[in-house]
């Protein structure tokens, strides 16, 4: 990757993290851990790889991004707001009465959200259906779907994976946010999904196992996936839950945290 692009994406990911810390902080509580861990992947997708048009969110040939771990809604919202999918004044309305930015992704409320999610395990099936529909229509869209590691305890993830693998949906790129933590503790202690790379390989996927907080690795992995035909794709993003929010990284469990005003202001250095 060119150094100027890497510099831009790195700075953008930092800005988006601060935006998300502020967005959740203004409400006071939220799913900070899983929002931070996927931010590098979203940055690469929306500022480099995915074809989307903020002026035309329903553009038929756009790439789709399904945030199946729907509680990462704020991560999507800071990106979509930054790109101009919705009016800037919405940014301070997360979870407020009547908002268009609810904690979990809602395609009927937020322009640019391609699927409603929140009841875990469901988004990947929807992505599989989109991939089949795109293939049927000769629509060049790539379908990106971000799933969680805790979410992958849901059986439906494996129903969808079995289908995608056996039907060679090569326009589907799944990303696993493998931050190894879930609401109640470590994924490994509660119901381990390890080893994910081997699991998805055995389901017929083309699998890449990368540092999911490394922008260059993410970009390369997406390029590799798009170049390999005949397989559904899995990119295992080895991430750190809370990455880039020092208080979240330091917490024993940052799945959902209270974020008082002084904390988010200190973390972001934002005074306004």
């Amino acid at each position, binding site marked *: 990757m060119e150094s100027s692009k890497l510099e831009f994406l790195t700075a953008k990911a930092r800005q988006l993290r601060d935006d998300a810390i502020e967005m959740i902080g203004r409400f006071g509580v939220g799913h900070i851990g899983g929002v931070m861990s996927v931010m590098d992947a979203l940055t690469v997708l929306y500022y480099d790889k995915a074809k989307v048009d903020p002026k035309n969110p329903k553009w038929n040939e756009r790439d789709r991004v399904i945030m199946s771990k729907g509680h990462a809604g704020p991560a999507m919202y800071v990106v979509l707001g930054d790109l101009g999918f919705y009016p800037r004044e919405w940014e301070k309305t997360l979870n407020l009465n009547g908002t268009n930015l609810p904690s979990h992704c809602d395609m*009927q409320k937020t322009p640019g959200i391609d699927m*409603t999610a929140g009841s875990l395990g469901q988004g990947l099936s929807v992505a599989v259906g*989109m991939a089949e*529909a795109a293939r*049927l229509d000769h629509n060049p869209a790539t379908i990106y779907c971000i799933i969680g590691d805790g979410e992958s305890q849901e059986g439906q993830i494996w129903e969808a994976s079995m289908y995608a693998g056996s039907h060679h949906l090569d326009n589907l790129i799944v990303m696993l946010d493998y931050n190894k933590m879930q609401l109640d503790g470590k994924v490994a202690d509660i119901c381990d999904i390890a080893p994910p790379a081997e699991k998805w390989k055995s389901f017929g996927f083309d699998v890449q196992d990368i540092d999911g907080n490394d922008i260059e690795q993410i970009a390369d992995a997406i390029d590799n996936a798009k170049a390999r035909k005949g397989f559904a794709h899995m990119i295992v993003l080895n991430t750190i839950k809370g990455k880039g929010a020092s208080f979240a990284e330091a917490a024993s469990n940052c799945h959902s945290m209270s974020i008082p005003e002084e904390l988010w202001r200190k973390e972001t250095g934002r005074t306004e």
Partner: protein
Amino acid sequence: MTDEREIRQTLASALVEKARKDDRIVVLDADLMSCHATKVFKQEFPDRFFNVGIAEANMIGMAAGMSTFGKIPFTYSFAPFATRRCFDQIFISVAYAGLNVKMVGSEPGVAAEANGGTHMPFEDMAIMRSIPKMVCFEPTDATMMEKALDEIINYPSSVYIRMFRKKAAKIYDDTLDFHLGKAIELRDGSDVTLIASGIMVERALQAADELAGEGISAKVVNIHTWKPIDKEAIVAAAKKTGAIVTCENHNIFGGLGSAVAEVVVEKCPVPLKMVGVKDEFGQVGKNAYLSEVYGLTTADIVKAAKEAISRK
């Protein structure tokens, strides 16, 4: 009189015909293609037919995803697996997301016969009726299924179709003027109204005959769309006859009896009796035997009608 046509074959053939002119239509099945006669669709449109395997939750999610691309997916399974097995997927991925999927659940209630209690849904309409804006439809015969298809395809949101698969009693001919949500009066009467759906329509007509022999005039109304329900027809019937009997091949809890009672109690209270399954599970057996066991026979309707009238 038994129909010459199976409802499943009628629907599958009609879907093929519609799909020739409407490339939005796709069909998904969960390893029950042979039970639903959907092979004809697969043969003509192999790219638009998706057998997802025994994975109903994934089927519903896939259909939701396809609908975001403007497809009109028809999903098929046996009614219990089409509804309760994947309730949350229907609720969230389809309904809450505002997407448009047409879901066929076959072998309602006692029609499941030898498949028994695991396959015998007395609750599918109650489940689907609890989902905001979900249209809940039970075709009475093949003619109605065929006539309903255009409206189902063009209805802007999701529809659940509770489909008896095989040859039902023939109630309608080609003159049927069908609209979703619009009840059909099959016979006028003045003493009691029998409101029936699905296989119970034929029995309600037989009950009306028997009642006529005893000098009781029964109006018979087919409510095929349990939601949105035809409130006007129910109120008009309550006002005219002053007593109502609901007849359903389903648990009365949350079913047609409940849906009619919700209207009657609020808009025009009259005595009401419910013929239907009373909080029971299914079991193996022939339709006729099970109908005796669960109180779904013509005699049960006649008895309920007399009781309702006596409470006027």
